[in-house]
């Protein structure tokens, strides 16, 4: 697929001609991220985070493979091999800090990527499949990150594993057998550690596979853009290379500066000190908290403190926590407003900035705080708003809202409303 004016790959010498007829890999790359991919000319820096997410996935795989060469997934020695990596392996400390902070940065850029998708309704037709695959990637990331955090076998690793697998124990009747089956025992131990390591190694490659599908699906309709108006003519687009390779290159530089500032100067700022205490099944930490990127969902889990009719509080929390992410799968069919961009949706915009964003911030803070007042009550209000926003407010405003006038085209949005300019640009011959 592509726009009719997309540039065609021309093999330039004998070798590339030979290759193009047998394995057209350069053609694939040319059409995917090269000059053969026309992209809206008006993308803001919010469209940078997909590339950054791909970059951090690679960082995680490369550093992770090296770490796995020195780590031993055995409850007797896992903590000690982690320290061995930190102390005795050449540049081991760099690999481990790069991996631990790489996970955080992967989540930061993915959250910004999701935020972009939510504000600009990137999930709407014809891009539903890109969004659905993105939610799958996010779920796989959460599973991978959780299992990775167990591997150093510190106190938070152990108790986090116990709490998270305990969620399955909330399922009526079969919950407890499922938990025992997942852990390979009654509590996290060698069996759990080994399978978590195995899956933690496997899942990133599954993520990479779904990322390929995600990018494939993206190349069918092409990228969305801040106006939400679809590409009409060639003047609406520029080739990905060199325009967006250059723009993304600058964005990558900024991201790397922030990332390495954390890795080299604040490597433990996002971690919990308790994870430098070796796992001890007999000593429960005062506050069991997951890594920061799970805090909003952990807050939703803990917000349900009271049984709801015949549903126990714990089960209710588990259902709500999973539902809070699974409901994203339905967004393309819940938000039926024909206008994509939040810039042209006055009601949506208000609920987004003054409802959803504050609710997410409150959930984030409460998820990291101990389960005491006022955090529990705040998280309950924010949780209620979270579900109302996606499941009630969004469907209703998408049918009652009066969108603001959209620009005629991307070209008009960029160059102003000068009709002559727009006309001239729009009539440029399509190749």
């Amino acid at each position, binding site marked *: 697929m592509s726009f009719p004016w997309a540039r065609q790959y021309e093999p330039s010498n004998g070798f590339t001609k030979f290759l193009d007829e047998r394995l057209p890999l350069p053609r694939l790359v040319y059409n995917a991220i090269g000059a053969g991919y026309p992209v809206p000319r008006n993308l803001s820096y919010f469209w940078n985070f997909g590339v950054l997410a791909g970059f951090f996935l690679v960082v995680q795989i490369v550093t992770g493979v090296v770490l796995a060469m020195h780590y031993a997934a055995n409850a007797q020695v896992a903590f000690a091999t982690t320290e061995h990596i930190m102390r005795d392996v050449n540049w081991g400390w760099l690999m481990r800090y790069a991996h631990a902070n790489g996970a955080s940065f992967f989540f930061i850029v993915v959250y910004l990527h999701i935020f972009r998708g939510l504000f600009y309704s990137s999930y709407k037709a014809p891009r539903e499949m890109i969004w659905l695959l993105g939610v799958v990637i996010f779920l796989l990331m959460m599973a991978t990150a959780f299992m990775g955090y167990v591997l150093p076998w510190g106190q938070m690793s152990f108790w986090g594993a116990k709490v998270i697998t305990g969620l399955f124990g909330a399922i009526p009747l079969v919950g407890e057998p499922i938990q025992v089956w997942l852990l390979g025992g009654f509590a996290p131990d060698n069996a759990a550690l080994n399978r978590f390591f195995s899956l933690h190694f496997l899942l990133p490659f599954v993520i990479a596979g779904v990322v390929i599908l995600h990018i494939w699906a993206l190349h069918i309709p092409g990228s969305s853009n801040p106006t939400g108006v679809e590409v009409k003519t060639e003047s609406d687009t520029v080739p990905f290379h060199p325009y967006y390779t250059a723009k993304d290159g600058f964005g990558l530089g900024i991201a790397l500066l922030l990332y390495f500032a954390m890795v080299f100067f604040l490597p433990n700022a996002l971690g919990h000190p308790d994870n*430098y205490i070796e796992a001890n099944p007999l000593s429960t930490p005062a506050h069991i908290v997951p890594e920061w990127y799970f805090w909003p969902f952990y807050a939703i889990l803990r917000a349900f*403190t009271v049984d709801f009719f015949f549903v126990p509080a714990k089960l209710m929390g588990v259902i709500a926590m999973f539902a809070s992410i699974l409901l994203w799968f339905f967004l393309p069919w819940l938000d039926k407003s024909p206008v994509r961009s939040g810039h042209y949706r006055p009601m949506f915009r208000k609920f987004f900035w003054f409802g959803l964003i504050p609710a997410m911030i409150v959930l984030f803070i409460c998820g990291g705080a101990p389960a005491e007042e006022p955090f529990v009550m705040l998280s309950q209000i924010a949780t209620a708003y979270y579900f109302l926003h*996606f499941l*009630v407010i969004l469907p209703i405003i998408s049918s009652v809202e009066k969108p603001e006038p959209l620009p005629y085209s991307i070209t008009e949005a960029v160059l102003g409303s000068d009709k002559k300019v727009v006309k001239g640009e729009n009539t440029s011959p399509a190749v």
Partner: protein
Amino acid sequence: MTKLLSVRLVAILVGLGFAVAVLWAFVVGAYNAATEEAAGHVPYEKPMDLAWSFDGPFGKWDHAQLQRGLKVYDEVCSACHSLKFVAFRDLEQIGYDEGQVKAYAASKQVPGIDPVTGEATTRPGLPTDYFPSPYPNNVAAASANNNAIPPDLSLMTKARGDGTNYVASLLMGYAPPSEELLAEHPEAAPGPGLHHNPYFPNLNLAMAAPLTTAGQVTYDDGTEATVEQMSKDVAAFLTWTAEPTMVKRKQTGWPVLIFLLFATVLAYMSKKQIWAAVKPKK
């Protein structure tokens, strides 16, 4: 269309269901909060904000201080606390030469095997050995310490929030509880076998003040061994044991960031140049 409408209708009902359930929990919680007295926290002090040679992005180890700290660990802490992730060979990193490390290692007895009978025994340490534990196992450690196992100190400053300041503050902070504190929180009084310390999160800990008198350790470099000095020196030493690569990490960070800054400026300029042709003229 009717099918899509029903998707949204179901969503609205589900959304209201979750909202009602969680708001019901909110109401119950608010009622409980209003009628029951909240369990108050016993207040404890945040660690003192002390100055360290290794602070900040340009921090460096003060080898003399680390060596003094080793002496405090060696003569005081090591009676009860292990340092199991630190090998004697590591001490070369804090300014000792190979011969000094060999001699220091040899002065310690580490577990070994009698080469003739195969029985468990002890032998003088080698640089490749790790600091030996004062107790053969956790049961012995618990039994000797009123059931509280003294934790390993290798990672202590990383295993506590603001760890270096915390360790130093804790060691300097032993004091009986004040009258006002006891009046407000009678439960803050130390129980049998416990010792009061305002920096410890529940105010009373099993470890008695380990550093009590000036001159408890005689420093080789002539520094006056006040309780404050010893506390700071051992906290600095334990910061090194927790992350011997910390200074190298910071020193590596600078060239990396400077390179990236340069590369990012270049990337910005090429982006500017490439986009100049298609940007609207102002």
